């Protein structure tokens, strides 16, 4: 049996009286790219945040590399890389300071992190701002720093939440390649996005959640067979019970023109 990178059993989470996750179970073997999709507020970010220990008070069992994350040890986090959707950065630091800081927290040596970080910045074409404060960066530059800082320690599992936002088309292509390379190396990628075309192309498996429950789980082809729809976007609309886009668009245009 192949080893599981991630395993979730009956995961429940609520904020006050509002139930956000209603019993989710997922098993992810190593080396898979999971497209984790769902409408706004479906519970995607909540799931990811639970993995990283940012949220506590959930019910259920969450295991990373066979280790229960509620056992109080933080060691499992060494194997995780995380790109949050709305990322907070200590942006008064320079990229050098920020990335080396995080690298050292992962237990890497300063020189090693520094060298790696510079090379990666070079690859992304932003090495000239390595010693500038992150506040002065453009959106794309910030995103690149974020990607570098979450991959610098060579993690086994990646949680990426809209990792491509703000990147130009060329960088998007580079990063998509990077992801498939990493998957081939046996790394697991948990990929959340609203851009269905990308998810459709890169994912080995797609998990769609709606209202805190899983409504579909399988490869793109399986999903296509199930729902008799052509694209992931259509499948998404169908499974989330959304079919009013034409009508809403009509109304929208009418209101603008009124």
């Amino acid at each position, binding site marked *: 049996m192949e080893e599981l990178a991630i395993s979730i059993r009956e995961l429940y989470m609520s904020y006050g009286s509002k139930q956000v996750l209603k019993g989710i179970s997922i098993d992810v073997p190593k080396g898979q790219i999971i497209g984790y999709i769902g409408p706004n507020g479906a519970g995607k970010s909540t799931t990811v945040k639970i993995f990283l220990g940012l949220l506590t008070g959930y019910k259920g069992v969450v295991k990373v590399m066979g280790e229960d994350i509620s056992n109080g040890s933080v060691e499992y986090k060494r194997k995780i890389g995380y790109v949050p959707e709305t990322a907070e950065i200590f942006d008064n630091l320079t990229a050098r300071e920020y990335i080396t800081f995080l690298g*050292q*927290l992962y237990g890497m040596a300063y020189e090693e992190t520094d060298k790696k970080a510079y090379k990666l910045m070079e690859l992304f074409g932003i090495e000239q701002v390595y*010693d*500038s404060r992150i506040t002065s960066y453009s959106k794309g530059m910030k995103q690149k720093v974020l990607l570098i800082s979450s991959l610098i320690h060579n993690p086994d599992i990646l949680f990426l939440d809209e990792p491509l936002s703000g990147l130009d088309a060329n960088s998007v292509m580079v990063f998509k390649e990077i992801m498939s390379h990493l998957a081939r190396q046996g790394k697991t990628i948990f990929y959340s996005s609203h851009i269905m075309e990308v998810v459709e192309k890169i994912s080995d498996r797609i998990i769609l959640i709606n209202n805190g429950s899983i409504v579909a789980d399988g490869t793109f082809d399986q999903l296509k067979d199930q729902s008799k729809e052509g694209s992931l976007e259509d499948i998404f609309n169908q499974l989330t019970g959304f079919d009013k886009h034409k009508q809403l668009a009509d109304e929208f245009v009418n209101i603008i023109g009124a």
Partner: protein
Amino acid sequence: MKEFVLIRLLDKTAGALKKNDIDYLQLRMILKIKLTLDSRNVPTVLSGTRNIENRNIPLLSMFMYGFMGLMISIFVWVPFSTFYKMNIILGMIIFMILATMISDFSTVLLDVKDKNILMPRPVKEKTLKLAKTIHVFYYLVRITLALSGPTIVMCYFKYGMLFSLVFLLEIILISGLVMFLTSILYFLILRLFDGEKLKDIINYFQITLTVFITIAYQFIGRMFDVSETSVHFVPKWWNYLIPTTWFAAPLNMLAEKDFAGFYMYSAALAVIIPVISFGVYIKYIVPYFERNLQKLNNSSGKNQKKERNSGLQKLVSAAACPDMQERAVFKFTRDMISSERKLKLQLYPSLVFAFIMPFIFIFMNLFKGNFAEGLVRIKGSNTYLCVYIGIAMASISVSFISKSEKFRGAWIYKALPVEKPAIILRGALKAFIFKFNLPLITVLSLACVLLYGPRIIPDIILMFINMLLLLICFFRIAAKSLPFSQEFQGMKQGTNAALSFALLFLSGFLALIHFGAKFIPFGVTVNIAVSAVITMIIWHYCFKTDWNDLEYTS
């Protein structure tokens, strides 16, 4: 990155920390990053390339505290009884530490960014907590030392070694107590409110505090004129409730060799209460914060603001701004002023000062002699001209209108089809007058009419017109940028101070003319007419700016 003194000190304890299941290297790194961030908390947006190590903001603020500490220490030499004197000194020190802790603590304590960045990394919660505690403690010690250091030195010269040692010990106890008091306050706020509301409450608290400190400064000086130096202190039961007496008691025992029961009990309280409260802080309050900090992120969206454009406000804005675009800016400015916290923190204290300062001057001679006689004396005088001080202060604050935390949002002005910036400037200035100056002058006038009688109504009309005149002049000179388009820190302190001084001078000049006009028959009426005409002329010309004349950062 440079090496910090704290880090070097900390290295000495590394062994002990490691034994306690703390990842020392991580702790060291987190602290180092925090101190670096602190030293840069003035984001210089575009100058980020080089020279970032050179500006040391914490050091500068330390000088400020040190200076205040020096002022406080002068009291050591005032010829009062030791007990009384120490009460005053300790009171000032406690208040200053408390005030700084409350405003600084909020940024450290309520920092969720910190958690979001560090929690996904393999950092133990214990390490993170310790880093936070050391960080807060480090600040507390620095501020406390700067504030009390000069006094300790002065005490050494006046009372000797033992006295200043006891004083130092007490300062340590006081720090613990202050820590407890600040956290209790935040504890209560966190308990009662959540999310955005909490930030609002803290904001209002900071406003009140700023006002309080400044006014307290005014009064501490005055108190000495009133108080009698030879008062014999008779202890009363409620003295036990005043923290400064606890700490002043042992000092008094040392200096005056007075070992009366009151001093003994007070001295005991000085030790017991800080120790107990610090214990409570560590045991109950810290864990509570850890659990509830998440609240800050979850703004429930329940307490949405109601649309504020009520019928009356619609009427006002329509009357003030006949032009549609201008009216939009008017409403926009009003909304911005009442919603942006940092702006409020700058504006509201100055509004309160503008109201209070005239009365401090008016009542200055009330303290001398009989109170009732003083009131009569005031009633017949021309001291209401002090209102000009308030008018000047309120006019200076108009320069804040170009500041905003979200100054980058100012691109909208350029994207909009607005032909002349005059529309935006005029709408914003009108909104500022309605939101800020009009309420101020109304309240000031009412208070003055009550105090001086209706005879001063013509004077008030003149003061109102002169206020508009000052405001427009200052707006024309100082506000060379669109509303909410400049960063707060980017303020050019020097030029602003010079301009403010010029404005105060102009204000004094107008007051002088006003005063002179009172000796001429119909003088005030003529003055009203002249001021009104000048105001109208300047109003007509003051918005004639081109887009290119305006400073614009983006």
